[in-house]
């Protein structure tokens, strides 16, 4: 048996106490690791659902205020713009009148491919969407929810426009925004025209920029273009457009991280208190070890090593559990559109290192004070106090 064997033997001395202390540390590390996955997970989620080269243009007054449809054409002409697609809220209800159960928009069918090349819509689906005036592209979640399949026909009754449209599903959106339904802009325009109305407005215009580095200049040009017009606009990249939805969540994560830091601090105090108790209980043995020749540095190192080994082992368990938990979550999320975004919360190598570093820190800080107290006391004084 060497020094390390002695450290391990001492950890086995009171197994229940070691187990409970280790459990508390493991739980804290597990919690911290899960929370550490959140910023990266949210970022991954944004990266999955949003693009940095796609810009949303909305009325500066708010999302519910429309813009002239002609803006889309003007944006297309701007330098650096690949294409632009107008979309307008259709607000169609399926089955239950007046109740919109999934988001549905009219979009410019011949612009979808160039504005959303990253959505991997099947070429056949895109071609059919352009070809069939009544074509619709539907998100996977909604397809599953209603048991639809490509080729099915459905009817949506608009809650906004005086139009009930019969639609033919031509493609499925295998995207995380898989609740959405797109119908052909021209189809809605003609339906409205038949009722003496025109579709001269757009709710959002999605502009795709050729080069990411031109995003800011294009956004500036769009704002200049619409400045002092009947509908001044506000622009955001798609990523920031969606991240604004997550903004409050990030604040929540920050609060959670602060709480977690405090929890970690509590764990340090708990582990430190446990270490102090252990040192007090073994005062006689420590005195004898010093008397038979163990130097202060050896006593100090062994006592700190005990808390460090316990803490790092517990931290390893915490990190492992966190990795397992997120892995299970990913597996579950892979089969569910609703839980899909949770698949982005991954305990990667950086999180593992941070978790283990935290457990190492807890071990060192918790062991420092009692070990120093036990080591620095002169051996004669220790023996007098104990015997």
């Amino acid at each position, binding site marked *: 048996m060497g020094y390390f064997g002695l450290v391990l033997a001492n950890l086995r001395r009171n197994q229940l106490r070691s187990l409970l202390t280790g459990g508390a540390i493991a739980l804290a590390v597990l919690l911290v690791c899960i929370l550490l996955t959140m910023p990266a997970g949210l970022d991954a989620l944004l990266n999955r659902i949003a693009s940095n080269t796609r810009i949303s243009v909305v009325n500066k007054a708010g999302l519910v205020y429309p813009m002239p449809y002609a803006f889309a054409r003007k944006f297309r002409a701007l330098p650096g713009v690949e294409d632009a697609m107008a979309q307008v809220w259709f607000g169609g209800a399926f089955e239950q009148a007046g109740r919109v159960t999934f988001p549905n928009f009219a979009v410019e069918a011949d612009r979808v491919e160039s504005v959303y090349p990253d959505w991997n819509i099947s070429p056949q689906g895109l071609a059919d969407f352009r070809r069939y005036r009544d074509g619709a592209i539907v998100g996977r979640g909604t397809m599953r929810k209603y048991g639809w399949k490509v080729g099915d026909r459905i009817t949506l009754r608009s809650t906004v426009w005086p139009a009930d449209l019969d639609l033919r599903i031509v493609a499925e959106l295998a995207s995380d925004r898989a609740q959405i339904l797109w119908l052909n802009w021209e189809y809605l325009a003609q339906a409205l025209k038949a009722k003496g109305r025109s579709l001269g407005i757009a709710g959002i215009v999605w502009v795709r920029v050729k080069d990411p580095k031109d995003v800011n200049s294009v956004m500036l040009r769009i704002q200049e273009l619409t400045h002092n017009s009947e509908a001044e606009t506000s622009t955001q990249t798609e990523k920031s457009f969606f991240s604004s939805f997550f903004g409050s969540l990030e604040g929540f994560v920050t609060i959670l991280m602060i709480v977690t830091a405090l929890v970690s601090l509590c764990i340090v105090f708990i582990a430190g208190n446990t270490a102090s108790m252990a040192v007090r209980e073994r005062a006689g043995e420590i005195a004898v070890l010093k008397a038979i020749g163990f130097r202060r540095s050896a006593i100090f190192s062994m006592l700190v090593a005990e808390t460090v080994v316990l803490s790092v082992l517990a931290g390893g368990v915490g990190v492992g559990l966190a990795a397992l938990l997120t892995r299970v979550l990913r597996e579950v999320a892979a089969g569910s559109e609703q839980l899909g975004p949770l698949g982005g919360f991954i305990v990667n190598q950086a999180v593992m290192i941070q978790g283990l570093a935290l457990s190492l820190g807890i071990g060192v800080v918790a062991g420092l004070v009692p070990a120093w107290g036990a080591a620095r006391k002169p051996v*004669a004084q220790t023996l007098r106090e104990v015997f």
Partner: protein
Amino acid sequence: MSEASAAGAAPPLIRLDRVSRWYTRGVDEVHALEDCSLELGSGLFAAFMGPSGSGKSTLLNLISGIDQPSAGDVWVAGQLLGDLSEDELAGWRAQHVGLIFQFFNLVPVLSARDNVALPLLLTDMPRAERLHRAEIALRVVGLEHRIGHSPRTLSGGEQQRVAIARALVSDPDLIVADEPTGDLDARNAEATLGLLRQLKEEFGKTVIMVTHDPRALRFVDQVFHLDKGILLEGDEARRAHDALELAAGGAPLPAPGG
């Protein structure tokens, strides 16, 4: 080099020169030992006796390098202990002193063999050699059949024998025992004292013991009496010795030292 060796005579293993030890307890200054001088040759089994608070353990701590005197010099095996720092003293103790305590203080989570091998951790000896030596030490104290047992499964007498093996394992010049029979029944106390005597007889060790136990007097070569921090000499020592003889039932006892 000590003065004695410089003069050409066989140097005493232990020499205390006007040693005092005092310390503060709260607002009081406690004089645990006053102006104590003595010399002890090697290969002796000596006992320090006296009532509680007489300074026996303080003297033992000074001789074993656990404590430092407030005044005076302590020489052991030619080393002036006052020259050593706390850490140097720890290293010196590991090499030269085997310690035995009243309450054994074995590490409960280690086997008897691992407990005995503990002092050898301080050496650069390979593990196999450490364990081999521990087994030999346990054989010397008659516990070779209890090598793998934990202290919890050993009797008080056996635990004290493990502690003696631990004191012996590093082959020190000096074995120091503080009330080694204080927590033992009569039979185990006799066995322990016999074992300490055996260390002196068979291995030539110098054994210094602090004890209240009059039985111990039958095993030792020399007895020193302390009272109120003073090492008794002359008539005072003789009177203390006579009182002990009476307590021991009138059996002839070794001559008083001091």
